[in-house]
C-alpha cells in the first residue's frame, strides 16, 4: 500500500493515453453490465423462495388448451397441496388492438398464491365485492395514467361478450405492488374475476374452463411428488396435464424465447478479446517508455519482485478503474433503458453477483495484460537499460 502513490503517478504519467484507455475499458464494462443484467433477468425469472412453493398445471397437449375447472377440487385433495387457484388468458388490449396488456381472469384466491405481490386490504375487500373490478400492476397504472376508481375499456382479441362485442369495461379497484424483483411481471398485468369472465363471455367460448392451475405446496421438498400426483389425476383422460414448478416452467419459456446465454457469451467474448489487446498494448507502451526509470528504481534498491508487483498492480488498477466506472455507468443507465422500453424490458439493476463477476473479470484481465510487461520489467538489466540498449 505504501507504494500506491508511486503506482498512481506511473499510471497517469501520460494522461491522454491513460484516459483514452480508461474510456475504452469503461465502454467494455458498460456493455458487460447491461448484458449481464439481461442475462440475470432471464436466469432469475421464476426463481424465488415463494416461486419454489408453486406448481403450474397446464394441459399436456399445448399451452393454448384449457382444462375443466372441476379439476381444481381434485387437485386440492392431493396430499401436500396447500391451496389451488386458477387463471385464464384473456388477451386484453387497450385502445388499439396492437397495444396488448397482459390480462388474466383469475379465481378469487389467486392473489393469495403470490404473497410477494402486495394489495391493500381495503382494495382486496372491495375487489371481491365488485363483479367488474380489476387489480392493476403499479407500472401499468403509471404507463396509462390510470387512477383507482377509473372505469377503463379493454378489448379482448379472443373473447366476445354475450352481445357479440369484444369491448369489455372494467373498474380499477386496487393496485398490485410486487415486493420482490422476481415478481416484477406483476407490475405489468391486470387481474379480473374469472367468475365474471366465465359468466359474461359468449356461449361456446369458455364454458367453465380454465387455462392453468397454480398450486402451493406445504413442503418445497415434496414439490416433485405432488406434481406427479397431480398429473396422475388426469392420466388417460381427454385433458391430461403437465405440472411443473414455477421455476422450471419459466425457464422452459425463456429457453424457447432465445438462447440468451449464447448471445451474451459470444458478444462478451469478442469485447474482452479486443479489450485484452488494447489494454495490453497500452501497458506495453507504458513500460517501454519507462525503461530507464525502472532501471533507476532498481538501482535505488527496489527488488526485482517489487518492480514486477508494481507493474502488475498498475495494470490491474487501470482495468479496475475503468471497469468500475463502466459498471457504475450501467447501473445508472439501466433504469432509464427499462423505463424507455415501455414495459417490454424489465431489467434488474446491476446486482451483487454481476459486480462480483465484473470485478473478478477486471482482476483477471488486469493480471493477464500486465503479465508480459511486468515480466520484462522484472528481467530488466540495470546496466543495459540505463545505457539505452
Amino acid at each position, binding site marked *: 500500500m505504501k507504494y500506491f502513490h508511486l503506482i498512481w503517478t506511473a499510471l497517469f504519467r501520460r494522461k491522454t493515453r491513460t484516459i483514452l484507455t480508461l474510456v*475504452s475499458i469503461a465502454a467494455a464494462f458498460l456493455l458487460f453490465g*447491461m448484458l449481464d443484467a439481461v442475462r440475470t433477468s432471464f436466469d432469475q425469472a421464476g426463481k424465488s423462495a415463494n416461486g419454489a412453493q408453486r406448481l403450474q398445471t397446464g394441459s399436456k397437449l399445448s399451452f*393454448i388448451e384449457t382444462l375443466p375447472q372441476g379439476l381444481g377440487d381434485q387437485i386440492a385433495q392431493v396430499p401436500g397441496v396447500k391451496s389451488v387457484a386458477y387463471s385464464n388468458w384473456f388477451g386484453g388490449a387497450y385502445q388499439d388492438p396492437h397495444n396488448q396488456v397482459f390480462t388474466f381472469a383469475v379465481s378469487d384466491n389467486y392473489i393469495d398464491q403470490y404473497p410477494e405481490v402486495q394489495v391493500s386490504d381495503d382494495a382486496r375487500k372491495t375487489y371481491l365485492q365488485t363483479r367488474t373490478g380489476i387489480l392493476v400492476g403499479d407500472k401499468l397504472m403509471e404507463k396509462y395514467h390510470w387512477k383507482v376508481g377509473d372505469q377503463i375499456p379493454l378489448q379482448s382479441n379472443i373473447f366476445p361478450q354475450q352481445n357479440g362485442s369484444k369491448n369489455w369495461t372494467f373498474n380499477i379497484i386496487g393496485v398490485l405492488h410486487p415486493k420482490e424483483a422476481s415478481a416484477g411481471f406483476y407490475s405489468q398485468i391486470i387481474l379480473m374475476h374469472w367468475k365474471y369472465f366465465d359468466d359474461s363471455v359468449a356461449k361456446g367460448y369458455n364454458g367453465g374452463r380454465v387455462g392453468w392451475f397454480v398450486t402451493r405446496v406445504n413442503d418445497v421438498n415434496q414439490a416433485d411428488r405432488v406434481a406427479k400426483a397431480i398429473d396422475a389425476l388426469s392420466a388417460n383422460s381427454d385433458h*391430461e396435464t*403437465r405440472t411443473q414448478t414455477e421455476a422450471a416452467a419459466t425457464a422452459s419459456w425463456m429457453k424457447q424465447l432465445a438462447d440468451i446465454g449464447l448471445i451474451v457469451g459470444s458478444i462478451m467474448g469478442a469485447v474482452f478479446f479486443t479489450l485484452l489487446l*488494447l489494454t495490453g498494448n497500452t501497458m506495453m*507502451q507504458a513500460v517501454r517508455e519507462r525503461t530507464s526509470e525502472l532501471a533507476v528504481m532498481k538501482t535505488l534498491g527496489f527488488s526485482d519482485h517489487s518492480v514486477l508487483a508494481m507493474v502488475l498492480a498498475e495494470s490491474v488498477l487501470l482495468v479496475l478503474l475503468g471497469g468500475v466506472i463502466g459498471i457504475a455507468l450501467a447501473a445508472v443507465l439501466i433504469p432509464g433503458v427499462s423505463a424507455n422500453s415501455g414495459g417490454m424490458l424489465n431489467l434488474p439493476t446491476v446486482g451483487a453477483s454481476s459486480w462480483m463477476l465484473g470485478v473478478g473479470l477486471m482482476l483477471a484481465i488486469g493480471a493477464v495484460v500486465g503479465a508480459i510487461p511486468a515480466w520484462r520489467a522484472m528481467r530488466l538489466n540495470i546496466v543495459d537499460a540505463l545505457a539505452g540498449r
Partner: protein
Amino acid sequence: MNFLFNLVVLVVLVIALVVWVQLPWYAVLALAVVFAAWMALTRRGRQAASVTGVGVSTLRQRLGSSSVVIVGIAGVVGVLVALLAMGEGYSETLRKTGSDDTAMVLRGGSAAEVSSVMTRDGILVVDQAPGVAHDSQGKPITSGEIVVAANLPIKGGGPDEEGSVQLRGVGDGAWAVRPNLKIIAGRKFQPGMRELVVGQGAQRQFAGLEPRHAIKLGAQTWTVVGVFASGDALDSEIWGDADAVAEAYRRGSSRTSMVVKLTDAKAFDAFKAALVGDPRLQVDVDTTLNYFSKQSEGMSKVMRVMGITVGTIMAIGALFGALNTMFAAVAARAREIATLRAIGFRGVPVVVAVMLETMLLALIGGLIGGGLAWLIFNGFTASTLAAGTTGQLAFTFKVTPGLLWEGLKWALAIGFVGGLFPALRAARLPVTTALREL
C-alpha cells in the same frame, strides 16, 4: 481561439457523420474517385500521397499497436453484422412467407391466426366470394385452417424438456394455395387420419419427427408420414388434416383462419371489399404476404435496436483504442512530421496522410470483422417464439451484402474520427517544439 477551433471541428464532425450514415454506395464511390483524382493531379495531393506512403511503409514496425485498431474495429463490425444478420434472417423468414395472390381471412380484431375463430358458415361465404381462384373441376382453391399448438420433446434436451410447435390443420386446398411447399420425404397425410407431415425446420428442432414414427400429442398417438420444405416460416410448423386436428382439439367444425388463392394479385381489392361489406361476416382480410410481414415488425425492430446499441457501445471502445494508437503514432513521428513541415509541406498533406493511414487500418478491420461474421454466422440456425405464432420459429442468420456494407461504413466512420484528432494535432504542433522533442 483553440476552444473555438475544437468546437468547429466537433460540429463539422457530427455533420459529416450524419451525412456519412445516409450516403448510398455510389456517392461513396464518387467521393473516393474525386479524392483519388485530387491525390493524383494536384500538387498538394501528390504531397499527401508521398507522406501517406512513408506512413504506410512504416506500419510494419508498429504492428502491435496498429493491430489494436484492426482488431478493435473487427470486433465492432463482427458483432454488429452478426446481430443485424440475426434480425435480418428473422424478418426475412417471415417476409418471404406468403404471396400477394393469396389472402388470409381472420375474424375481425384478431391479432393472429391462433386467436381467430371462423365458423362453418363463414367459411362457406368466403368460398363463394369474388376473386377466388378455381381448380379444373370448378372447386374454389381455399383452405380452412386450424392453428393450434402442441408440446413436443426438444431434440437434445433433457428427458422432461418440451417445447411448443405450431400445429396447423389444413384443408384440401392447402397444397394448391402454397405451390412453393414441397414434400421432400415420405408422403402427404391422408384426410381423416391422424397423420402428420412436418416442416424441415420443426424436424431439426424436435425429437421423433421422422417419417413412420409415432408421436404423442397429449394422450393421442399420431404418425409422422412425411417431411415438407417451403423455405419460409411454414418450415417450423407441423401439418395434419384439419378435421382430425379439430377433433383432437375439440374445435368442432370451426376453423381459426382461411387461406384463399386469388385469381391474381389484382383481384385482392375486390375480394376484400366483398368480404368486409358482407353483413354475415365480421372479418379482417389481408394478403398472406402482408400478414406475415406485419408479424415480424415488432421483433425485428427489437433485434435491430439491440444490435445498434451493442454496436455503438463497442464502437466507442474501439474509437478510443484507435485514438490512442494514432496519438502514439503521431507522437513517435513528431520530429519527422515537423521536418516535413519545416521543408515546406503544408498542413493538409499531413492531416490527409494520418487520416488515410487510420482509415486503411479501419478498412482492414472492417473487412476482417465482416468476413468473420459471414464465415461463422451466415446460415447459422436459431429459433425463437415469434409473435403471433404458437410455436418456435426457426430462422437462419442472413449476412447480406447490405449488412456487410453497413459494417464497413461503421468501420470507416470509426477510422475517420479516430484519425482526425491525432492528424489535427500533428498538423498544428509548432514546428520548433516538435523538432526539439525526444
